[in-house]
């Protein structure tokens, strides 16, 4: 959901940008973006945990649209459970999609970005990395890993014209856990000093800034976007 909102945000504000949305089976929202921005938004088949798929995706993007300037690693999923009852596949699956995939994505774009001496990498971490709730050991560990990767890679790339940053969104309207009851939603809102959840475009705006030339001296940071919850 955040990925599609961010794609729209970029396409609405930068008439020159082309967006490639990495997709697997679920692609309805991405298809809507492509339909609304014909000729500037494209679907890009991508299994994020497969290194070869990243290579193919990059080839497709470069052939169709020229050099890739911005990578937003947004894909990921929860599979919540208490650690005592978590299966290893629950652990490994979340680590694979939320952390290992970020490694593969970053590695695949690094060389072309180095050759053009310009690039922006934005990794979508989570508030769970900084304020880890019970039941999310896998997700919190993966997202904390994304923050560490971001800091380290930023240092490796600092001289190369490539910035690497992470964002840590809290709760976002339209992307709340399906299991939450109305009461739970109200309770979490009450705990949030802003008394509301983020609108997707409030998160996208920060991603848009991090991708811009204006953010040229900002690298290795993790931007917390949580309405002061933490």
């Amino acid at each position: 959901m955040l990925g599609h909102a961010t794609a729209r945000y970029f396409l609405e504000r930068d008439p020159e940008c082309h967006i490639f949305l990495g997709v697997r089976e679920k692609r309805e929202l991405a298809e809507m973006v492509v339909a609304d921005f014909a000729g500037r938004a494209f679907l890009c088949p991508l299994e994020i945990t497969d290194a070869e798929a990243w290579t193919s995706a990059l080839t497709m993007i470069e052939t169709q649209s020229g050099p890739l300037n911005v990578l937003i690693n947004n894909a990921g999923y929860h599979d919540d459970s208490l650690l005592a009852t978590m299966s290893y596949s629950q652990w490994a699956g979340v680590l694979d999609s939320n952390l290992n995939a970020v490694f593969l994505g970053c590695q695949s774009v690094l060389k072309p970005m180095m050759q053009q001496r310009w690039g922006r990498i934005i990794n979508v971490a989570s508030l769970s990395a900084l304020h880890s709730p019970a039941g999310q050991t896998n997700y919190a560990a993966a997202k904390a890993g994304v923050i560490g990767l971001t800091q380290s890679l930023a240092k490796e790339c600092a001289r190369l014209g490539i910035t690497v940053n992470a964002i840590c969104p809290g709760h976002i309207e339209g992307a709340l856990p399906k299991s939450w009851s109305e009461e739970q939603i109200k309770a979490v809102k009450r705990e949030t000093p802003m008394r509301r959840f983020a609108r997707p475009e409030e998160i996208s705006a920060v991603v848009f800034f991090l991708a811009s030339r204006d953010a040229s001296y900002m690298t290795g940071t993790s931007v917390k976007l949580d309405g002061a919850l933490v």
Partner: protein
Amino acid sequence: MNLRHRIKEVMASELMLEVSVDDIGDDTPLFGPNGIGLDSVDALQLVVTIEKHFKLKISDQDKAREILHNIESIAKAIEEAGLA
């Protein structure tokens, strides 16, 4: 311009070295305290730079260590690959 001098110019420019091209000998070690003092990030950038300017692909890490020893070893690798 001869190949070795071109490598030095490209390297100094792309890696933004604060050293004159004339101060880089063909056999001056590129890494370590007794040489130019490049680090691992420079090495990565050098691999990309060599591929971009001289079309020599260095994909193996051990091979990279050998090739990036000094300007002479880089030039030889480019010449041996028929890319000079």
